C-alpha cells in the first residue's frame, strides 16, 4: 500500500518535471528573451527614481513557448527576425517601429520550400481584397502569426482540425474587434447575420473553411490567397453540393487527407486528380474510410446502380402487368 502511494506521489512529482520539457526546446540563444517574455511581469531599473521597479508585461508581448516551438519558426532565434539591438536591456523604445520582415523577404525564390509556392501565394494575395483595401498595412502576419503558425492543411489528417485552424485565422480579425480595428474603422461584421442565408449555418462554419466560398479556388495552389470582396463570394450551393464539387479542388484535395483513406499506395495520383480520392469515395474501397458527407457530392455509384436496377425492374414489372391486363380485358 505504502509503495503504491509512493509510486503515485513520484508520478505526480514527475508530471511537473515533464511539463517544462517543451519550453526547454526553445533555442538556447532565446533564453534571455524568454525569461521576461514568458512572464506576466518584468523588472526594470528606473533611471529617474534610481530604483528597480517591477511592472506588468504587456500581454501582447508574452510568448507562449509551447506553441512557439510547435510552430514553423520554432527553432529560430528571436534576433533572426527582431533587431539584434533587442539584446540590450532595457530595450530602445524606437525599436518597436522597426519594419518586420514579411514571408516573402525570406521565402521569396526559396528553393527549400518551393512546394509552398510562396511567390504564387504573393501573386494571389496581391489580387485580394485585403491588399486592395489595406495596401502594405495588410501583411502576411495578420493571418499567419509568425510565432505560432503551423501548416495544418499540409500536416493534419483531420478535416475538422484543418477547418478550425483556417477559420480561426479569419475569425482572429473578423470576430475580434481588438485586431479588426487595426486595419479597419468599420463596425465589426455581424458574421451570423450576414450568413443567415446559409442553411445549417453552424454545420457549415464547423465543416468548411471560410476560404472555400471567399476565395478564387486554384487547383494548383495549396490554399487560395485571393480573398474576394464579399459581393463576389460564392453563394451558389451546387458549387460544392454536386458531383463536380469545388471542395475537391480545395478542402479535400490534400494528400494527407487522401493518405488517411489508407489505400493511397494502391492508387497513382495525377495532378489532374488533384488528390480528390478521399473526397469521392467512389470506389468501394473508399466507402468505409471517409469521415465526411456532403449532400449531392457524396454518392456511392454501386448504391445508385442498385437503385436504378430496382427502379427499372419495378417499372418493367408494372408495365408488363398492365399490358397483360389490357390484353386479357
Amino acid at each position, binding site marked *: 500500500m505504502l509503495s503504491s502511494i509512493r509510486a503515485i506521489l513520484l508520478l505526480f512529482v514527475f508530471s511537473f518535471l515533464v511539463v517544462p520539457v517543451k519550453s526547454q526546446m526553445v533555442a538556447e540563444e532565446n533564453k534571455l528573451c524568454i525569461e521576461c517574455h514568458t512572464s506576466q511581469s518584468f523588472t526594470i531599473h528606473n533611471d529617474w527614481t534610481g530604483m528597480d521597479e517591477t511592472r506588468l508585461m504587456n500581454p501582447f508581448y508574452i510568448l507562449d513557448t509551447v506553441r512557439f516551438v510547435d510552430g514553423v519558426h520554432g527553432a529560430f532565434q528571436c534576433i533572426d527576425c527582431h533587431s539584434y539591438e533587442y539584446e540590450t536591456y532595457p530595450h530602445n523604445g524606437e525599436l518597436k517601429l522597426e519594419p518586420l520582415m514579411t514571408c516573402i523577404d525570406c521565402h521569396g525564390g526559396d528553393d527549400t520550400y518551393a512546394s509552398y509556392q510562396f511567390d504564387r501565394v504573393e501573386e494571389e494575395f496581391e489580387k485580394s481584397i485585403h491588399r486592395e483595401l489595406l495596401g502594405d498595412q495588410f501583411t502576411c502576419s495578420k493571418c499567419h502569426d509568425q510565432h505560432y503558425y503551423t501548416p495544418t492543411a499540409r500536416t493534419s489528417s483531420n478535416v475538422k482540425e484543418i477547418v478550425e485552424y483556417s477559420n480561426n485565422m479569419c475569425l482572429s480579425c473578423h470576430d475580434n474587434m481588438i485586431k479588426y480595428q487595426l486595419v479597419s474603422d468599420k463596425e465589426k461584421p455581424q458574421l451570423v447575420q450576414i450568413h443567415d442565408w446559409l442553411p*445549417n449555418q453552424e454545420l457549415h462554419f464547423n465543416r468548411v473553411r471560410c476560404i472555400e466560398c471567399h476565395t478564387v479556388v486554384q487547383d494548383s495552389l495549396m490554399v487560395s490567397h485571393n480573398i474576394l470582396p464579399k459581393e463576389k463570394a460564392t453563394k451558389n450551393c451546387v458549387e460544392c*453540393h454536386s458531383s463536380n464539387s469545388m471542395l475537391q479542388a480545395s478542402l479535400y484535395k490534400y494528400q494527407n487527407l487522401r493518405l488517411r483513406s489508407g489505400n493511397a499506395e494502391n492508387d497513382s495520383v495525377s495532378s489532374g486528380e488533384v488528390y480528390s480520392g478521399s473526397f469521392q469515395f467512389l470506389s468501394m474501397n473508399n466507402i468505409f474510410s471517409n*469521415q*465526411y458527407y456532403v*449532400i*449531392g457530392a457524396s454518392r456511392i455509384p454501386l448504391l445508385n446502380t442498385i437503385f436504378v436496377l430496382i427502379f427499372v425492374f419495378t417499372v418493367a414489372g*408494372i408495365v408488363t402487368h398492365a399490358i397483360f391486363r389490357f390484353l386479357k380485358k
Partner: protein
Amino acid sequence: MSAEGKLYLYPLWLRIWHGMNALCIIILIVTGLSMHYSTSILFKFESAVAVHNISGVVLTIFYVLFLAGNLVTENGKFYQIKTKGLKNRMQQQIKYYVSGMFKGETSPYPVTATRKFNPLQKYSYIGVMYIFVPLVIITGFALLFPETIIEDVYQVSGVMLTAIFHSIVGFFIMIFLFVHLYVASIGKSPVSNYKSMVTGWHS
C-alpha cells in the same frame, strides 16, 4: 355503413391524412432526388433543401395524426398482424395478381367492411407505415439536426451513414409509391379506387 353496394371505408380524417401523406411523400421524393443528384430541373438546391425540410416536418405531423387515428378509431384493427396461415394467404394473393386475375378468377380476399386490405396490401402497408416511414422520419430529423448524430462510427462519418440509410429507406418508399399507385388501379374500374380515396366510398 353501405349504400347501393358501396362501403364507407375511408373516413374523412383518414382521407385528409392520406392526401397530405401522398403530397408530402411526392414532394420529398422529388426534392430528395434533386438534392442527391444536385439537379435544378424542378428545384434549385437551396429551395430543394428548404422544401424537403418543411415537407418532412409536415409529413411527421400527419404521421402522428395517422397513429393517433389508428389508436382511437376502429381503423387500427386493419393493421393487426395475424401470423397463422400468413404465408398461405400471401401466396394466394400473389397467385391471383400474377395469373388468377387474367383468368377471370375472383379475388381471394375481396374488400368487406371487416377486411379493408388483402394480405399483400395489409403487410406492405404495415411495413411502410410502421417500419419505413418511422425510419425515414427518425433519420430525417437526425439530418435536420446533424449535431445529434454520432460523429464517427469506426472512422466512418455518422452523418454519412445516416444519410445513406435515409436515402435507402426513402428509395424503397418511392418504389412502394409506384407499386401502390399501380395496384390501386386494379379495382372495379381502373379509377374506382382513386375515387374511393376522395369520396370515402369503396365500390
